[in-house]
């Protein structure tokens, strides 16, 4: 039941294979807006895609995006907030993106194949991490996120 990406160096083909594989594992998926990625619907809606490489190493990139409340924090405050979370936690990356959305991203790096256990553990871990972050920064995020 492994996801086998041997010889695939095309992001779109790799992501399509990943989506089919996720569905076979029982995950519910949806189309994502605008690009080759897709959404895994679980505790969170993770936008998932693969950055494939011709050397047969691949990166699964999972992103969760939150709308922000205009004016609650200035850009300067958001930048400091994201900088401080990046410094404190060692589980993912945090930024205010170009569309002024709060973006959280995790990566899973692997070679030719990905096994279901590692993928399930990874998704569970990033769900847990997200819950932890939202709890720890509740005062700021509840007010700042739409």
């Amino acid at each position: 039941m492994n996801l086998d990406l041997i010889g695939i160096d095309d992001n779109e083909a790799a992501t399509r294979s990943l989506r089919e594989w996720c569905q076979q594992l029982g995950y519910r998926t949806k189309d994502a807006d605008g690009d080759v990625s897709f959404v895994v619907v679980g505790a969170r809606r993770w936008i998932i895609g693969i950055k494939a490489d011709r050397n047969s190493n691949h990166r699964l990139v999972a992103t969760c995006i939150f709308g922000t409340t205009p004016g609650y924090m200035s850009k300067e405050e958001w930048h400091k907030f994201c900088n401080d979370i990046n410094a404190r936690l060692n589980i993912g990356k945090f930024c205010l993106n170009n569309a002024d959305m709060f973006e959280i991203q995790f990566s899973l790096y692997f070679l030719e194949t990905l096994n279901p256990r590692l993928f399930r553990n990874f998704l569970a871990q990033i769900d847990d991490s997200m819950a932890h972050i939202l709890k720890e920064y509740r005062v700021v995020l509840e007010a700042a996120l739409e």
Partner: protein
Amino acid sequence: MNMNFELGDSDDDLAAVASFHDWAQNLGYKTTLRPDGKMVGIRGRYGFDIHFRNSPGMKRLIMRCYFPSNPDRADMPGRFALANQINGTFNIGNFWFDGDADFACQFVLTFEERLSPALWREYFSFCEAGVSQVIQQHAEDFRPFMK
């Protein structure tokens, strides 16, 4: 011969650091076990510090390197904006300015019980290339802040 780095179901982070030090050295990497045993220094194109966060069935190897910037802290908002811009552009790791105003780069490799030499070598090269790419692409943006 099995050259994998095997952690089994251990969640002992310090034991993992010590084992990794020996394993990476056997693979030909220049490594230093820090005196407190919490990290391994590994020397490549850059000097990285490595530590672990392990749980049964899921291990995380966390790699960091730092670049000193000008300690004059008057322009910290500019540095935070730059770190945010870099995090928004790249999806290879995460980046920030720390309490000493050093620019920090962090990469996290998640794996199960074992790490193969092939995966480790590819990952380490990927991280080195990632740091180089960030530095080169943002050389002009860094200039006002660096020593």
